[in-house]
């Protein structure tokens, strides 16, 4: 029932207007709690305070992947169920996913500078993220190339699904490539036994960032719905002016 309700853009806008303030408040709250935890977390005995970059790096890596997964679901919604909000969701998610992936790369580089003595190494994990970032940019370029949102939506949906199938293959290939070359040393997090003093703030930070993502995504979806209405109105304006 709720699913059918959401299919109506007007009702969707009303629900977003009601939910968004609460979601924003929850996000602020979660960040306050998480940052408090991060500040209280002990420094690494080797890495010092730079280890704190991890508290942004890991959540943004998670969101970069999460976002592609979400876009894949939306792509199915566009292609299979023809849900009217599916490609709105996909379009609104793409810049956010790209932004979090970019954040992941930048924090990775800043973290790498004291660790490896250079901003960038072709480490398997970072490189996979870089390839994903390029795919995000390609997707954004695709959205920008086609003016008609419905047509662009179908094309982007196909690309998203192909990407979703290929991302694991890319990840596997990059891992293989990297071990083959015995490349730079890979920094590993402390394995499965992360100390709770770090694990809890990390989980809190991940939750806070995810909430932020959802809030931004809903707001972006609202903007996209409104933007499409403006477009429809202007098309209508051109049509009615025809008779004059």
């Amino acid at each position, binding site marked *: 029932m709720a699913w059918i309700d959401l299919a109506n853009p007007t009702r969707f806008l009303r629900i977003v207007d009601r939910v968004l303030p609460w979601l924003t408040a929850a996000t602020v709250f979660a960040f306050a709690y998480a940052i408090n935890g991060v500040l209280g977390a002990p420094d690494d005995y080797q890495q010092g305070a730079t280890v704190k970059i991890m508290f942004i790096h890991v959540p943004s890596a998670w969101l970069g992947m999460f976002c592609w997964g979400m876009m894949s679901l939306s792509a199915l919604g566009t292609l299979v169920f023809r849900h009217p909000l599916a490609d709105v969701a996909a379009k609104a998610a793409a810049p956010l996913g790209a932004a979090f992936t970019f954040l992941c790369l930048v924090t990775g*580089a800043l973290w790498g500078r004291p660790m490896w003595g250079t901003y960038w190494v*072709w480490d398997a994990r970072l490189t996979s993220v870089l390839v994903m970032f390029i795919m995000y*940019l390609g997707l954004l370029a695709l959205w920008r190339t086609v*003016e008609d949102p419905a047509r662009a939506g179908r094309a982007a949906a196909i690309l998203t699904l192909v990407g979703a199938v290929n991302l694991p293959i890319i990840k596997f290939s990059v891992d293989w490539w990297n071990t083959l070359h015995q490349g*730079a040393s890979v920094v590993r997090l402390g394995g499965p036994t992360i100390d709770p003093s770090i694990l809890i703030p990390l989980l809190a930070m991940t939750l806070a960032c995810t909430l932020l993502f959802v809030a931004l995504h809903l707001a972006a979806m609202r903007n996209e719905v409104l933007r499409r209405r403006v477009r429809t109105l202007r098309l209508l304006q051109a049509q009615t002016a025809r008779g004059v």
Partner: protein
Amino acid sequence: MSALSALLVRDVRIALRVGGGAMMGVLFFLTVVTLMPFALGPDLALLRRLGPAILWIGALLASLLALDRLFSADHDDGSLDLLLMGRVPIELAVAVKGLAHWLTTGLPLVVAAPILGLFLNLEPKAIAAVVLTLLVGTPALTFIGLVGAGLTVALRRGGLLLPVLVLPLTVPVLIFGVAASNAAVVGPVPFGTPFTILCALTLMSLVIGPFAAGATLRHGLE
């Protein structure tokens, strides 16, 4: 003068709006540079040594990317006819279109080069040298490309032909661009020697490009 500035504004605007190709070149540049280590291996010392060459090859290919639409888009919608009927010589119009194309495709490559330099582990001095040579050299690539873009209009379906026609002409620019970048880091030639030749090549192409492209457009009308 106002006609030419109007043309510049128009072309830049079209490139930046929906459907324009302003950022495609940079995206292509990023992709090509990212692919290189997959072929060469993640050896940072090797990448550092090859870095200037990789960046130059990437920029060269990226600057060719949107070139085939430069005149053919105007030809297909009838704009080229009207451009030829203006009171401005077609050579100047071609030069301005080249400038607009460089601003929207060449300049972003120069801006992106330092970031890609970090990927290739270049030292700051090498990055500065590559950026400087690209800043001077990419206009030459665009203006040599004008000739190919003009020929694609004359030959109708020349889009695939364009890289084959243009790439050999860019050899001198590539040689002195990479040579200057390397000279800045390892020597033995001082940076200034190849760099001055690169500047000369650019100045020459700024003159030759518009005249040759203008001639191809006039003949393309037959």
